[in-house]
């Protein structure tokens, strides 16, 4: 493993947690540091396998644990002969199902292969602003997901300049931030969606925009 002090940035880089400037600094670093680059490649490979084959790696463990618990239960149940015992067991199972379904644990996100890339869960489509416009944007809008989510928006111009949070699918850009935006400059924005408990559900691609004058 790397003994380079920059190796501490590898995971944050792979998980897209670095700010733009930090990211660029780290990228420049691994162009110059073979040790970090080898470490980065190795971890990226592990991350890719974990992301793309999570069902194989983790779900079977949970199924195996459930199975072990279930086998014992089944053997004991088969000893009951009277018909009313079977009916009572079925009724109890139905009742448990009705009680359990609303509270079932959150499923892990599903990974699907889109046309261009692997995306996590549903795709999060950004609506506006995008491309060229005549004036600085007043708000950001995106399509809602099919499930309740908390959205965090990040605005960049090479580095993070503003971040906002909402459960809606529109976020107004504060006036003081809008005033600081410069005509002709390229800005990027991105939205990440989180479940109520705080797990990342999906993340949009980054969209860019530029405006001529205010």
């Amino acid at each position, binding site marked *: 493993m790397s003994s380079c002090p920059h190796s501490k940035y590898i995971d944050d880089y792979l998980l897209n947690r670095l700010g733009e400037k930090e990211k*660029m600094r780290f990228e420049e670093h691994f162009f110059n540091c073979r040790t970090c680059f080898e470490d980065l490649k190795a971890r990226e490979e592990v991350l890719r396998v*974990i992301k793309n084959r999570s069902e194989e790696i983790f779900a079977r463990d949970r199924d195996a644990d459930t199975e072990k618990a279930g086998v014992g239960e089944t053997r004991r149940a088969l000893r009951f002969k009277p018909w009313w015992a079977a009916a009572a067991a079925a009724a109890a199972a139905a009742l448990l199902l009705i009680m359990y379904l609303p509270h079932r644990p959150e499923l892990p996100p599903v990974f699907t292969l889109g046309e261009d890339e692997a995306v996590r869960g549903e795709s999060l489509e950004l609506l506006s602003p995008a491309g060229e416009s005549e004036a600085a944007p007043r708000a950001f809008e995106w399509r809602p997901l099919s499930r309740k989510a908390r959205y965090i928006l990040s605005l960049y111009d090479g580095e993070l300049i503003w971040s906002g949070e909402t459960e809606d699918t529109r976020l107004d850009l504060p006036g003081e931030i809008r005033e600081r935006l410069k005509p002709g400059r390229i800005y990027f924005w991105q939205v990440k969606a989180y479940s109520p408990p705080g797990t990342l559900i999906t993340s949009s691609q980054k969209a860019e925009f530029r405006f001529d004058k205010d």
Partner: protein
Amino acid sequence: MPDRAQNYDAVIAQYRPVVSFRVRRALGGDIPDWEDVVNEILTQVLEKVRKGEFRGESSLGTFIYTVTSRRIVDFIRQKTKILKSGPEPSVPTDPHESLEASERADQLVRHIRMLKPKYRDVLFLFYFQELPREEVALKLGITPAKVSERLHYAQKLLRKKIKK
């Protein structure tokens, strides 16, 4: 001079893996143009070096990184208005993945499943659920430093197994 040019060829060629990594991460590994972009970048670097545009004020790695970043931005601007700055939040997948890479992935799956639960748990929470270290620590009832230690050890183990 010819010897110097040949030397540069060989030296710059060594940067192909890191340039490829950067380009694939930025554009997505399944965009068919990515290899062409890498070739263009390396050709451009070689031309600039031969013309004397690389004066040694920065390291060669930094010079190549700068050329790479500019070419990626140009490519994205040419192709699309919506920036694809790498598959977010995941990792590029390549439909032309070599058989070797596919076998390595199968091996990794097996080896990860064979890890002790305490290592699998940190991999699941940190890499799959993308929880911050502090939250992983809270869920497992250990310190963040312990989380880092287990991640580091799990990675080291997996690298060792794959090398075999």
